[in-house]
């Protein structure tokens, strides 16, 4: 077991090093002078230039620079943003909760609908319901989500006025930030101040549309995966045995089939994480959601290279960590592998 964990850990470290290296190379690959790019000036007077170059360590050989960079990153120093002049890490911390909140709500929404839909489609295989569901989910991951978001805004915000167009909460509410997750903070403040749940509802209303948009592709992908996973499991011998024992169909599907069908579904859920980040970039842009997706996009348009470099690195690290975590959870869920490892 330890050997296995150790191996996984090593793999993870290697990937992280690789990613750090590539991000490190980023600025040096962009055409143009790295010093100017990092400082964000068009030109500088020679004295200031040399000083900046030395400060940034750009006068040292490449490998030394890389080691230095890695050291800096591990200490939490990811550079300074050209546009805001703040530390990249600070900028990230400020925006991260927004994306986390949006992603979680989107994934919850996706899972909540995908699994029942997938199961129903599998049970009613080849009926109109099945074709309809699968057709819809195919359309779901064929459509550009930036367009989908605009369509929903047009319909629900503009025409019907049910949801707001942008932002995380109505401007009139000023709730103290604790976690950065508006839903939780709003709840907390409501309980403490006893001022009713209006801020909470406001935050929720702001979340609905973006999460639906962000969750659409994971919903479509997971619905299809649930359906195919279920179909495969329903054909297995042990399901036949369960039926032969006289168990109710409900039990056969929800207990016998579900447990075993769950494994590929969880894997897909984990893979959706990457889709979520991609989607977040586009969704946040449309809804002016102050998260890291929008942050990366604006920094690219603004040529804020330190931010791009730092932001991409953080995101990549998070993804690698999450993937490793998912691998471990997957093994835990699969009793056969868990047992094999524990022995």
């Amino acid at each position, binding site marked *: 077991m330890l050997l296995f964990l150790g191996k996984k850990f090593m793999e993870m470290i290697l990937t992280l090093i690789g990613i750090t290296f590539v991000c490190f190379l980023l600025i040096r690959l962009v055409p143009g002078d790295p010093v100017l790019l990092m400082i964000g000036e068009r030109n500088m007077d020679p004295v200031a230039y040399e000083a900046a170059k030395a400060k940034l360590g750009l006068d040292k050989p490449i490998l030394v620079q890389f080691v230095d960079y890695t050291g800096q990153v591990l200490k939490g120093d990811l550079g300074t943003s050209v546009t805001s002049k703040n530390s990249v890490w600070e900028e990230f911390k400020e925006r991260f909760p927004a994306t986390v909140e949006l992603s979680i709500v989107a994934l919850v929404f996706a899972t909540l609908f995908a699994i029942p839909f997938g199961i129903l489609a599998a049970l009613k295989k080849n009926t109109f319901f099945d074709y309809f569901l699968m057709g819809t989910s195919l359309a779901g991951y064929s459509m550009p989500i930036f367009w989908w978001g605009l369509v929903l805004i047009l319909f629900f915000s503009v025409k019907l006025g049910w949801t707001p167009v942008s932002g995380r909460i109505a401007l009139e509410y000023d709730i103290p930030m604790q976690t950065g997750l508006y839903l939780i903070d709003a709840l907390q403040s409501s309980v403490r101040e006893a001022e009713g749940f209006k801020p909470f509802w406001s935050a929720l209303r702001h979340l609905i549309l973006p999460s639906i948009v962000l969750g659409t592709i994971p919903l479509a992908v997971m619905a299809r995966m649930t359906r195919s996973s279920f179909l495969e499991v329903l054909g297995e011998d042990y399901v036949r045995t369960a039926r032969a024992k006289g168990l109710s169909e409900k039990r056969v599907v929800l207990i016998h089939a579900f447990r075993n069908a769950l494994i590929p579904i969880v894997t897909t859920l984990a893979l959706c994480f990457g889709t979520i980040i991609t989607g977040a970039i586009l969704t946040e842009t449309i809804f002016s959601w102050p998260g890291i997706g929008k942050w990366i996009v604006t920094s690219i348009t603004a040529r804020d290279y330190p931010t791009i470099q730092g932001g*991409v690195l953080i995101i990549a690290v998070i993804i690698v960590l999450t993937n490793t975590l998912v691998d471990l959870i997957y093994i835990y869920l699969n009793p056969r592998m868990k047992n094999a490892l524990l022995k």
Partner: protein
Amino acid sequence: MKDFFLELSRDIRKNKGALAGLVLILVFMLLAIFAPLLSPYAPDQVIEGALRLPPGTQLNNNFFLFGTDDIGRDLFSRLLYGSRVSLLVGLSVVVLAASLGTLMGLLAGYFGGWTDRVISRAMDFIMALPSVLFAIVIVAVLGPGLVNAIVAVSIVALPNFTRLIRAQVLAEKNKQYVQAARLYGASHLRILFKEILPNCLAPLIVQGSLGFSDGVLNCAALGFLGLGAQAPTPEWGTMLSDARSFLETSPWMVNLPGICILLVVLSFNLLGDGLRDALDPRLKNRA
């Protein structure tokens, strides 16, 4: 080879989804090829006084089937030419990613060892980052523009092809016909291209179809973010981005390009999906 395609066409016909997809694709291809003939105006032609006209408006002697945009250009013509751009993008991405990916997959699978390790690590690496993000980063380095966007999206599409071919090669490598070929002295190249590659064709076609749709979608996303095709190129994603501020007043400017993207991507996904179901050997034998 002929039998392969005969069977393929039979499989497509059996699967209604794939057939629908194929028909749609052909429609778009025709529209794209005959765009100059079909479009009433040039894509960047500005018509006097025709600002943001809704679809179906008649102005003097001009009829705008899909309306006009905020500069006064006919949307129908722009969309038609946009289909050229999108199909070109999809084709380029697939050709680039498939050829390079197949080559790398063949090398990695066949020769194993360090070749495999290096190539596989590189692919794992590209896959570690979400597609659009990685594409954005590449474009950040290379600079915005349609060509750079195509390059970026192709790189992102590489791992799918490489892994696919590599898996196929690994499966076929130890089969008897390959060993027989080696016995009578066939060179590595010959074995790779004459023996192994033909067996990879089926999944390659499926992935090609799906890669096409991904390519179009990703490029449109880049266009939307302002990093892909630049104005005045009539790329659907870029058109969407320009139309954003007019969402309320002229929704057709937003909806029509979006629907076009949806239809093209959908058609290739339908085809790819249908082909995958049809070519799945397990499903083939099920009564």
